């Protein structure tokens, strides 16, 4: 065969195989993406059930004493959900409609959790250790990324602290009400600690100073770890 001759069939077969591989890659990517979204939805459902269960438990116990009502009854999955949602948002982009819907649902769950926690705290006269964080990823908040890192670290250091993160620009009336009740201005990042709003970047040390309970928790932890070391050495 003349080696100059163009074998068009080969070019066509190659194209078909390449297109097939590309389609398979698109299919696989979509499949995993849907699986991830399904996992997020599942966690959200779990949280919804957790909150409903907590509310019910709280209502049942409302007439009774405070000793059985602690923040332990609150859902523990909010942190993990937030991590996965943030990862997916980065992956698919903030404009993705599915992500927007999931974020709205997540924000509502957070508000419900926040209200429940406040109720428990009021009834049982406990100071809630919570931080409400407002951010924007429209590109108008330079320090939001840094604030996010600090709050993630804070959550790791102090699992007792409940951090609620809200996209300030999310179009959802309950969130806008939360913003107006607390008079949070569009000067981000903004943190609500106690009942006060703090604007601008707050370092880990700043936050520790703003929440004295954290220092107590730290001392308690240090004492426990020292005791454990001493016991071990003995």
């Amino acid at each position, binding site marked *: 065969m003349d080696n100059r001759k163009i074998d068009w069939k080969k070019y066509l077969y190659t*194209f078909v195989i*390449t297109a097939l591989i590309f389609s398979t*890659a698109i299919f696989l990517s979509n499949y995993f993406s849907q699986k991830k979204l399904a996992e997020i939805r599942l966690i959200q459902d779990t949280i919804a059930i957790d909150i409903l269960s907590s509310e019910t438990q709280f209502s049942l116990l409302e007439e009774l004493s405070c000793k059985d009502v602690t923040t332990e009854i609150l859902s523990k999955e909010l942190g993990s959900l937030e991590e*996965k949602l943030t990862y997916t948002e980065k992956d698919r982009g903030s404009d993705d409609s599915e992500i927007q819907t999931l974020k709205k649902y997540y924000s509502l769950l957070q508000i419900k959790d926040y209200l429940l926690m406040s109720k428990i705290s009021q009834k049982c006269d406990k100071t809630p250790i919570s931080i409400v964080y407002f951010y924007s990823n429209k590109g108008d908040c330079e320090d939001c990324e840094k604030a996010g890192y600090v709050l993630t*670290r804070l959550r790791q250091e102090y699992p007792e602290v409940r951090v609620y993160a809200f996209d300030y620009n999310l179009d959802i009336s309950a969130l806008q009400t939360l913003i107006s009740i607390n008079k949070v201005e569009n000067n981000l990042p903004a943190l609500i600690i106690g009942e006060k709003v703090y604007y601008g970047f707050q370092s880990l040390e700043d936050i520790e100073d703003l929440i004295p309970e954290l220092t107590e928790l730290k001392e308690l932890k240090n004492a426990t770890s020292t005791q454990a070391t001493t016991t071990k050495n003995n």
Partner: protein
Amino acid sequence: MIEISSAITYVFLFVSLYFEIFLLITYFENRAKIKEESFNLVNNKVKRFPTVTIIIPCWNEEKTVSKTVNSLLNLDYPKDKLSIMIIDDGSTDNTWGIIQKFKNKKQIKVFRKENGGKYTALNFGLSKSTSDLIGCLDADSYVDKDALKNIVHYFEDKKTMSVTPSVKVWKPKNIIQMIQKVEYDWGVFLRKMFSYLGAIYVTPGPFSIFKKEVFEKLGGYKHAYQTEDMELAVRMQTNHYKIVNAHDAIVYTVAPDSINKLYKQRLRWTYGFIKNVMDYKHLFSIKYGNLGIFILPLASISIISGIYIITMAIINLAFRIFDFYTKWSVIGFDINKPDLNFDWFFINTSFMTIISIISLMGIVALLFIARKMAEKRFAFGMDLVYFLTLYAFISPLWMFKAVYNAIFSVKTYWR
């Protein structure tokens, strides 16, 4: 902007995957033929030994020229049919002194001329040769003893006008040479595939052999941006001359042993490629078969895509480093709490990642086939690791510069 950049990346990925599959199909189509050719070389003796002249152009090659000449003297080829011309192209070292020891050998002629560049030395040799076949051997390359016999075999097809050998790296010692070993093995495979496609566009300096009539009809070597071996090949392709590859004809070449030398060599090659392609742009035509519609366009695109992909990778890396720095500046190193919990959720399953992995698997598969063809066995070595991890980062160095030089017409130098 991001959409445009993603779209460009997808196109490049599609083209690169297409090329990989095309090569794999070509290989499997011709696998039996490759074996048959090797079998014929061993079992069917050459019927007629044509006269051959090998020209060795030298410029300051005192360290390697003796070994080069001795390798030619050791060729398994009738002595009366093989002439060797050593041409000292105005060396400033002791090359002339060293080649004197060969001047009394019957097969060898030594000449000295004013320095004028490799192509002038080759043309000097061509003007003095009357053999049926003429070839060149760079003075830093050594031939395997069966190389010429195996090449001559392919000239039994009357249409064949030039035969290229398999070029391999001579005893790689450091990482730079080991990377090139994989690259040259890859070249062995690629040249054979291009041979089947009628699309060889370089007749390498080390031991490509030509029929005398190539030079009689097309003229001698040209300066061609110091890549005369490519220019001659594309000139032959323009004239529809058949060039084939003898994969069992082995030639070893001493590869650059430092990044600086490698950079200079590759800059010259890439620059020469770009300029020759521009001079011979008429080859981008269906008239020139697979070379015109696929191989040359793809080789040209690969320079652009190489630059584009590595630029994107560098930008991406810069962003990651910036993010890491931001994180570090606010919370320090998180060395106390490594997160050991594995969650599949955080595995990157984007289309880009999946297709890149498939493409990489294709490259690895082709590299193994190339290794098998070049070394006659599958062997996994550190050279493959170095190649896969480092080559993508060093090759853009000369690609960027070559494109820059070609656009702004900056001359490149041999050394």
